């Protein structure tokens, strides 16, 4: 009988997590593991994820792979789960020492990379002068990884780019349309706006549309986080200057692989950084980046 290793993601409805699950699925097939794909239905649904974790433990799996929606909240439940099975963390940490292994993109680092990308794009558009107003649009408050990206972004701006002034730090409600509306309004209200960081997939789609709608490609730089077909086409059109891309597929794949090894009592690495890469029109054709942009989904 095959061992069972469920993977619990933050939000099954997001494309990003679909890629993570695809990676896990692939690993499951290759390694002969049964991989239930579980997850909350919104990144902010902490309680929902705790319930799912409890249910998963109740099914007596060999190990569990989980991306915690909220570091502090998931700490105790993961401790409890780890008392019964091996737990491997991916993507986002939890306040628990019980992880057997932890594979992640450092989201704070991702925010820094985004700031660098935005600064570079603004410099390029303004003859090397890295100055002007910039804005940050976050999909929704209360999502840990988005807060970390914002933190990294702001830290890096303050530390490295004194010419860039963060004039707006706004939260939407998770809807592309809201991101779009906020962006058009910011553009109207701030004539000197030079760049926007939209810190996840759906915000980048909305904000990208605002820039396309107002024909500001190149005038207002946009950096997004994560990628899909739409964002890649924006990148190609020059609407988006750069994307910070993680390696969700690998997180899923390696997560299952590590968990299987751990469940057999093998020794596994405690911390793995799967990296955050800045993708621009210039480097998007590189094979490594191309693989990130076009993960094999099935």
């Amino acid at each position: 009988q095959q061992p069972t290793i469920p993977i619990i993601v933050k939000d099954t409805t997001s494309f990003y997590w679909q890629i993570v699950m695809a990676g896990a699925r692939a690993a499951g097939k290759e390694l002969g593991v049964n991989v239930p794909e579980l997850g909350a239905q919104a990144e902010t649904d902490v309680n929902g994820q705790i319930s799912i974790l409890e249910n998963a433990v109740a099914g007596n799996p060999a190990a569990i792979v989980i991306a915690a929606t909220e570091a502090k909240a998931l700490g105790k439940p993961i401790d409890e789960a780890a008392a019964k099975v091996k737990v491997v963390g991916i993507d986002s940490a939890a306040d628990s020492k019980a992880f057997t292994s932890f594979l992640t993109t450092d989201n704070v680092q991702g925010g820094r990379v985004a700031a660098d990308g935005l600064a570079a794009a603004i410099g390029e558009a303004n003859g090397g002068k890295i100055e002007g107003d910039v804005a940050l649009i976050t999909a929704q408050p209360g999502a840990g990884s988005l807060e970390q990206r914002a933190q990294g972004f702001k830290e890096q701006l303050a530390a490295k780019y004194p010419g860039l002034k963060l004039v707006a730090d706004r939260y939407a409600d998770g809807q592309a349309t809201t991101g779009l509306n906020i962006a058009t309004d910011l553009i109207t209200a701030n004539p000197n706006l030079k760049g926007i960081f939209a810190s996840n997939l759906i915000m980048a789609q909305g904000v990208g549309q605002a820039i396309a709608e107002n024909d500001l490609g190149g005038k207002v730089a946009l950096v997004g986080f994560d990628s899909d077909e739409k964002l890649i086409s924006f990148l190609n059109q020059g609407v988006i200057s750069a994307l910070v891309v993680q390696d969700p597929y690998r997180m899923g794949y390696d997560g299952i692989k590590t968990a299987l090894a751990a469940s057999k009592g093998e020794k596994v690495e405690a911390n793995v950084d799967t990296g955050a890469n800045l993708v621009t029109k210039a480097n998007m054709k590189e094979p490594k980046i191309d693989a990130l942009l076009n993960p094999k989904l099935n």
Partner: protein
Amino acid sequence: MSTETAAAPEAPRKRRNFNVLFGLTLLALLVVLWIVLSIATPSFASPVNIANLLRQGSMIAILAVGQTFVIITGGIDLSVGAVVGFSTVVTALMINAGWPVWLAVATTLLVGIGIGVFHGFGIVKMGLPPFIITLATLTSLRGIGLLMTNGNSINIQSEAFQTFSRGSFGGVPNLFWMVILVGVPAYVFLQHTRWGRYLFSVGSNAEAARLSGVNVNRTIYMAYTLSGLCAAFVGVLLASRIGIGNPTQAEGWELQAIASSVIGGTSLFGAVGSVHGPLLGAFILATINNGANLLNVNSFWQRIITGVLIIVIVYFDGLRRKGGR
């Protein structure tokens, strides 16, 4: 009904203190908002921003009109947000499959109608409360959309389709023209045809309507079908505006649509409502958001202010209504 009656005796006493504000119609309240914002921020009254504002309010406005038909019959349609999201997916898939845009749009509208008919069926034939059947659709439709897209966004490959929502005609954004395209027939339908009147009669007293020879069941089918149709139409517009098909979009728009409708004076107990009310309600909400963005109000404060303004506006509008009786 209960609670409205309960409040009635209190209001008149206070009325006198607010003579000026009290006479304001909803439209006047909106204009006051606009004037205040024009003074507070120079960019508000700029043509670009007005175009933005008109675009931003359009979709909820159309949804609210459809929703109002349903609420007038004493029902509720919680599914509209999900129908919008689902419709973006349907449109996107068909356009990407190479269908001509008009056919893709028409098919999407048919899907919306189909969903509305299903709601009518659930209510009329299965005897389900509207809340339940439309909540079930909301849940299921998002699931079906996600299955179809695998949680991915579908990039719509037609430039022309996307240009539409950005364009304008005679200086007015196309999206706002769509509001007029929906609003005018909706107004005529609701106020000047017998079917509109039947909607009111069913919401007022379904038994009386039935005894008067009104086909109550058909009227209910009609209300939900119209709401589904409006939602599917908004889905097409949204797909055009954001250029993707994504089933998780428009989440929570049902609440915004209902709120716009209620702000516009529709009673959730049925039989009271108009077409201009929900339109005004939607643009009041859009103005609040637009203004807060322009003034760069902290996002958290923005929520607080929105809540407070909703109370204030509905309060003054309520005073006027009571006085006007």
